[in-house]
């Protein structure tokens, strides 16, 4: 039995928003790209060439893409451990990501970070931490910097429902409201922290976004399987941030299809019902969006196949790049402990 069910309404009424067709198609492409990259990583993981823990985002693509596409190039994303999607959605370098998984010197962190430390400064992905909630105050500090320098820049702190149990989220929220910082606290609530369901960690009926509201921050919950709703929520919050209206809190409700770490789903171990995962697979964010775009005549099976072929080629190239790249050397180990 599914304890946590999809509460969204799908794409009913979404056409009223009148978003540019190009944007919608690009968002679909990005979601599909994340899914296919993740599936490729998962398929190759048992080969043991990627000697790094992985946290697959399969099932969570809409939140990653909707939020990223609502940002401008100069905006900052600070990400956490389950962040392949947040990284890719901002247009970050796929080669550097796969190479990092291979622990190669061409990886985005030169083989020093692994999968939980994905960066692409050029794409706005400026910081990652594998400590739950760790990057939240750092994001807050970057927003403080933007305010002090009078820059029109939004910072987004990405984290999960587990991070909302760390005190530093609330310390950061309090400070951001106090200083009216241009920041969005973006919580991807997938109901599980490793294998512990939300109800064992937070009281039922007390919603995350309502707690945040108590701190004086505009706060809402959105259907995390609906890329357009996520896009709209982040777009509005970013506009408010840039206009000096201060921080926002967005809780995107979605579902992790795979295990906390590694390849495959581990529902069979019993911490959640397989039926729950299957329920969420019925409302696959990519499939829902595809059907919507199909109904609007913006996509068709042929176009989708063309996209797949293009992404496939990119993925093959990225793995080849990673495989052919050199490993870091001893001298690389000692570099960048201290800055000049």
């Amino acid at each position: 039995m599914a304890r946590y069910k999809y509460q969204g309404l799908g794409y009913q009424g979404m056409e009223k928003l009148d978003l540019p067709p190009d944007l919608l198609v690009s968002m679909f492409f990005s979601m599909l790209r994340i899914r296919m990259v993740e599936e490729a990583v998962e398929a190759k993981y048992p080969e043991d060439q990627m000697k790094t823990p992985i946290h697959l985002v399969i099932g969570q693509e809409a939140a990653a893409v909707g939020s990223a596409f609502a940002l401008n190039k100069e905006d900052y994303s600070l990400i956490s451990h389950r962040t392949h999607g947040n990284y890719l959605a901002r247009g970050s370098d796929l080669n550097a990501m796969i190479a990092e998984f291979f622990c190669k010197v061409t990886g985005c962190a030169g083989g020093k970070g692994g999968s939980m430390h994905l960066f692409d400064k050029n794409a706005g992905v400026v910081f990652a931490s594998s400590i739950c909630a760790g990057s939240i105050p750092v994001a807050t500090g970057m927003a403080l910097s933007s305010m002090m320098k009078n820059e029109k820049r939004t910072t987004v702190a990405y984290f999960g429902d587990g991070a909302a149990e760390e005190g530093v989220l609330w310390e950061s929220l309090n400070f951001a409201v106090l200083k009216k910082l241009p920041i969005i606290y973006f919580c991807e609530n997938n109901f599980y922290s490793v294998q512990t369901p939300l109800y064992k960690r937070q009281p039922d009926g007390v919603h995350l976004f309502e707690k945040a509201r108590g701190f004086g921050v505009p706060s809402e919950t959105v259907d995390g399987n609906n890329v357009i709703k996520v896009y709209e929520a982040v777009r509005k919050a970013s506009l408010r941030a840039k206009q000096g209206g201060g921080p926002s809190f967005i809780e995107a409700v979605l579902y992790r299809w795979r295990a906390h770490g590694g390849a495959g789903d581990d529902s069979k171990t019993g911490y959640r019902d397989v039926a729950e995962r299957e329920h969420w697979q019925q409302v696959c964010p990519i499939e829902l969006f595809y059907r919507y775009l199909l109904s609007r005549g913006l996509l068709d099976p042929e176009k989708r196949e063309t996209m797949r072929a293009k992404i496939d080629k990119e993925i093959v190239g990225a793995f080849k790049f990673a495989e052919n790249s050199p490993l870091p050397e001893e001298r690389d180990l000692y570099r960048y402990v201290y800055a000049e």
Partner: protein
Amino acid sequence: MAWDEALVNKVGEEHHAAAVEGRIIDYTQALHEAVTLALEKYPEAFLLGQGVDDPSGMFGVTRGLAEKFGESRIFDVPLSEEGITGICVGAAIAGMRPINFHNRPDFLLLAMNQLIAHASKTHFLDNGQSTVPMVVWAAIGRGWGSGAQHSQAIQGLLLGVPGLKIVMPSTAADAKGLFLQAVADNNPVLIFEHRWLMKKKGPVPEGYYTTAFGKGVYRRRGKDLTIVGTSHALQLALQAADEVAKEGFQTDVIDLRTLKPLDEQIIFESVEKTGRLLVVDTGWMMGGACAEIACVVAEKSFHSLKAPVRRLGLPDVPAPAGYSLEQIYYPDAGRIAKVIREMCQRKNGGR
């Protein structure tokens, strides 16, 4: 509390008697100058911390700065040590130079995650793409009945963290020069001051200057024994050295200024001459600065040693609050002198 003020005033008057030239000001004035100069030199520098803009102004170090530089650059913060430390990390990555004042190092224990997981590792973890130029300042609060949770000297806990720098001045001139170097540095720098040094007077050059990290300095020269340390412990060692000098024991007293980076060469140089090493520190001996320095010498300069290394810091016990127990807990100049005599007499007596 009159008795504690009197105590610090007494410390303040004790050591400046040594022949010195130049402008004499006290420690907090020197630091006030340093903070002012740093804020003038670096438009991206800003100062935050609990009470930095309150009337007492962090022992006077930050008094008047909010009026001079404005509330956007000098501001008080909520009691959220981890949050504020992370905020400093983020601001630093984004190009600012945050200077975060804490009244006491004890409160840094709440910020360990951000200091150890982020501030110190970001530059390494993103392969040199980001730098984290931030300063964390705190004054060790020995005495006043501060006790176990308000007087901790935690430099030893942080010594083993790659990516951090740890600064522990002992003179007013160094407090200024090392502070300015800390703000100029592109790494996270922890400055541990000592409350008992806050009224210490000394010659302090005017204007902007920096004192290099990782460069120790001889405060006294002698052939019989090497004493190494920082901060208030070093000042006590100097008193002890003065005392035993009257008895004919001549000591090298080395002020390391920074524990990380550690000036190993100056220690080896001195120990090669004296063959005897006493390490003093304001913190716990076990696993701390004393232990590390003693180990470095045992490992790399063993051939120079003619006697076992001694260390004099705090025992493996939390700080007591009561003043009578405090006197037992903290080594004073007399105890340091006693250890010096033991070490030197052993030498003379041929143990």
